[in-house]
């Protein structure tokens, strides 16, 4: 550990959310690198500025919104100099100068000075009783005024103004909101949604004067009223100016740093002086300034990474969403919703129910959304907006939300706000709403990952992710930090799945350590998330060359059986196309009796599962099954599982083709292949679809004139019917298309991403073009799959049962008889 003398000095100007979030992220990455001093002009620790509105409205206390208490700074050896303002940055000597004239040296400097409320240059603006809405001090003054006075005027009908007005109204004041334009929150809302909002605020007693321009603030010793451009006047004992914020970059500008509307920073959050960083509301990045919290967190992460000298993650800007924090009003807006010639709109308006939804599309993608009255799908639209999902295939139902598309799992049934605390949110881990809310408030959680780590909610199957995000939004008042747009593969790296796959190919990386070294992994051996992913990517990229790393396999794939809750395993032999014979059944029965296997069960994939096998018995069980001609069913694999078939034209009076035979042919060709996630096939002999082919990863529906190929279905966490890919005339063509499709998925899918998710992400048309339309490409894909199968089609059971592979895996190292 470096001692104080040799450590570099990091000085942070600004004790707000952006600055401290950066420090927190830095401590995670490099706890001992810097000697940190934080200057904050407010006399508090770091608090959650977003939640000032609920404090004003009396729904939360100041203590509720504290993020880092003074103890936190002490515990982390950070010198906090609260109530001290920096007057000057001396870049020549690398020092900052306090108000009192003290000079404090820095090696690196972080400017996080935030923003100031804009005070309109009106006559009377300096009268007592005229205030902005920015910090705890302002809130205290407003609360005080509400006990002493009656009439308040809020100038500004934007987010901040309405929240201030709502708070003052809740504190018993008569509130008039003055707005320059004729639409409330015009930056976030269109006129229709703005009108609905106005109506429901008016019903609560808020008064609006708009469009109206304030000309002067009246009064002598204290404010007494406001005069407007049309000459009318309004009595007021309190005037709150909430017309916007202005990045606070005076200090930076004085120091000669290049500034425009904020301190201009690069993608690594550095100013024009490389020793000086800036984050938060005071910066201008790629011509944008931000006043919401999610971008600040993204910036903090990138900045901390750079300060920690770990790689060079870059900040690419943020897409933001907004939710009004006025209890009882549901309003959500995201992205760009200004009308334009190249944009299309889908609008749903139900005045009686008070529901308005407007989704704006451009190039088949969502670019903006405004929701009023029913905002449950806000996070879902926002997710698609940030991911740039091609939504053309769900366009007709898009406006009805995730639940109507079967995309939301259990989400979308209910508004989380209406749920009781006992309502279960995460079915996998049994976490109810109350537990999540409690964890968020008590442990000051901000992100989905935080909630996952602390409560386990949404950490297993993930189908409740949308609900958990809603609970977060609801508890934090909406402005939580959404998951980053480009998801890192896991916490060990900032690189995405796509980056990793691309670099493996470009740099010809052929081992897990080589990938980790080249891509600057943050951990020594990765973790249980990234190692299996890397192992798959290498295996799929370098068939025959890459040596499968058993220690990077999840236990099921390492021992070729499925671990059960008691540590025993289950064994599923392959039954090609679901067809078996008396001798196979006899062998299974014999094995079950010989090894005292407690449960024998028929699976949904038309095979038989032997449950409760002891690990050390596995090789012997397999040997007996091998002797009867059976091989591993890969029921444990991220690979080809089953091909479910109906009896087809061989027996069925409706059958149009030999669906069983085709199923067997597909399974014989494709077994043993590893894929990003499990792959299940189905072949039905006629459109009655007894093999349920249209909810499989790949399904074939035989018709009299040929074979319809479908894919991207699911019947698990999500229920989703397949997409129609193409129709062909022969079995051979069917095989070629399906194999090529699977190969494309193998080459592009993210680890653990099911085929339907991949299709959602990449787009049906893209896939069809490369698998169906481009015949040369289809044949090349088929060829690569076939090549890889040479190395994959070895029965893993036979290797272990009779050829001694991994013998150590199945036997204890020692047996001790202790005295």
């Amino acid at each position, binding site marked *: 550990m470096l001692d104080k003398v040799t450590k570099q000095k990091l000085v942070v100007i600004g004790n707000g959310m952006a600055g401290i979030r950066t420090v927190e992220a830095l401590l995670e990455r490099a706890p001992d690198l810097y000697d940190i001093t934080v200057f904050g002009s407010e006399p508090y620790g770091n608090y959650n500025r977003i939640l000032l509105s609920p404090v004003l409205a009396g729904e939360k206390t100041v203590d509720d919104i504290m993020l880092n208490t003074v103890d936190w700074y002490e515990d982390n050896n950070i010198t906090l100099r609260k109530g001290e303002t920096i007057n000057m940055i001396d870049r020549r000597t690398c020092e900052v100068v306090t108000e009192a004239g003290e000079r404090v040296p820095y090696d690196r400097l972080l400017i996080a000075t935030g923003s100031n409320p804009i005070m309109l240059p009106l006559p009377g603006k300096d009268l007592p009783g005229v205030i902005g809405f920015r910090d705890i001090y302002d809130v205290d003054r407003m609360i005080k005024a509400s006990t002493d006075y009656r009439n308040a005027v809020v100038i500004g009908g934007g987010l901040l103004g309405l929240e201030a007005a709502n708070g003052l109204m809740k504190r018993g004041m008569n509130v008039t909101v003055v707005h320059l334009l004729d639409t409330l929150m015009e930056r976030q809302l269109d006129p229709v949604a703005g009108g609905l909002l106005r109506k429901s605020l008016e019903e609560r007693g808020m008064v609006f004067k708009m469009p109206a321009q304030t000309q002067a603030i009246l009064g002598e010793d204290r404010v007494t009223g406001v005069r407007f451009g049309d000459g009318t006047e309004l009595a007021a004992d309190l005037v709150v100016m909430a017309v916007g914020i202005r990045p606070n970059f005076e200090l930076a500008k004085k120091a000669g740093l290049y500034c425009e509307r904020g301190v201009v920073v690069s993608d690594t959050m550095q100013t024009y002086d490389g020793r000086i960083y800036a984050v938060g509301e005071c910066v201008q990045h790629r011509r944008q300034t931000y006043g919401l919290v999610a971008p600040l967190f993204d910036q903090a992460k990138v900045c901390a990474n750079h300060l920690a000298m770990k790689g060079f993650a870059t900040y690419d800007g943020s897409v933001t969403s907004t939710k009004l924090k006025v209890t009882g009003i549901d309003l959500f807006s995201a992205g760009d919703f200004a009308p334009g010639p190249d944009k299309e709109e889908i609008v749903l308006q139900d005045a009686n129910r008070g529901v308005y939804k407007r989704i704006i599309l451009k190039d088949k993608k969502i670019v903006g959304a405004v929701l009023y009255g029913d905002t449950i799908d806000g996070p879902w639209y926002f997710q698609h907006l940030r991911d740039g999902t091609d939504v053309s295939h769900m366009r007709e139902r898009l406006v009805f939300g995730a639940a109507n598309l079967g995309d939301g799992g259990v989400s979308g049934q209910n508004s989380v706000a209406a749920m009781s605390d006992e309502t279960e949110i995460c079915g996998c881990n049994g976490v109810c709403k109350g537990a999540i809310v409690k964890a968020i408030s008590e442990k000051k959680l901000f992100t989905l990952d935080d909630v996952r*780590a602390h409560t386990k909610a949404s950490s297993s199957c993930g189908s409740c992710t949308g609900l958990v995000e809603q609970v977060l939004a609801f508890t934090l008042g909406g402005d939580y930090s959404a998951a980053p747009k480009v998801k890192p593969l896991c916490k060990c790296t900032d690189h995405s799945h796509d980056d990793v796959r691309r670099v493996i190919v470009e740099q010809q990386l052929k081992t897990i350590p080589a990938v980790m070294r080249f891509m600057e992994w943050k951990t020594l051996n990765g973790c249980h998330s990234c190692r299996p992913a890397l192992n798959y990517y290498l295996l799929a990229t370098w068939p025959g060359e890459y040596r499968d790393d*058993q220690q990077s396999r*999840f236990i099921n794939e390492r021992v070729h059986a499925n671990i059960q809750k008691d540590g025993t395993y289950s064994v599923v032999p392959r039954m090609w196309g679901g067809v078996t014979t008396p001798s196979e059944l006899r062998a299974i029965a014999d094995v079950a009796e010989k090894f005292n296997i407690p449960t024998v069960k028929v699976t949904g994939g038309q095979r038989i599962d032997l449950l409760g096998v002891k690990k050390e018995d596995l090789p012997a069980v397999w040997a007996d099954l091998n002797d009867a001609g059976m091989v591993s069913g890969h029921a444990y694999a991220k690979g080809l599982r089953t091909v479910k078939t109906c009896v087809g034209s061989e027996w069925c009076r409706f059958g149009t083709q030999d669906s069983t035979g085709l199923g067997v042919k597909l399974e014989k060709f494709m077994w043993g292949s590893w894929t990003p996630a499990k792959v299940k096939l189905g072949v039905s002999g006629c459109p009655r679809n007894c093999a349920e082919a249209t909810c499989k990863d790949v399904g074939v529906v035989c018709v009299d004139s040929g074979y319809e190929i479908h894919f991207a279905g699911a019947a698990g966490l999500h229920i989703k019917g397949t997409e129609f890919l193409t129709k062909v005339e022969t079995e051979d063509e069917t095989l070629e298309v399906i194999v090529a499709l699977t190969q494309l998925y193998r080459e592009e899918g993210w680890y653990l991403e099911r085929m339907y998710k991949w299709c959602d992400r990449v787009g049906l048309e893209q896939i069809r073009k490369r698998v169906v339309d481009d015949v040369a490409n289809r044949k090349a894909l088929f060829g690569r799959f076939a090549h890889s199968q040479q190395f994959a089609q070895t029965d893993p059971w036979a290797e272990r049962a009779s050829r001694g592979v991994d013998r150590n895996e199945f036997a204890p190292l020692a*047996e001790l*008889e*202790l005295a």
Partner: protein
Amino acid sequence: MTSWIEIGALDDIPRLGSRVVRTPGGNIAVFRTESDEVFALDDRCPHKGGPLSQGIVHNKRVTCPLHNFVIELASGQAVAPDEGCTHTHPAKVENGIVWLSVRQAAAVS
């Protein structure tokens, strides 16, 4: 006083892997890290009793195969925010041979 028992060769445990030692008090999982350190823990996750020996080993930690609890090999502690602790047993390597000292009290199942 610690009494050491020889349990096998280091090479019989895969790097970043684990083997089981059977005792009358229950299984003990012996782990080998990338740098050939060894650690021994009761083969039971503090969460739902999952066999830690079957988990993925990374650095000086193992992830339980049942529900992804991550356990520190040196202390047996679950990594925050998860809570819980698994008993550890002293283990060492000398000249390629692994030695284990079973803590009787800890091995009671």
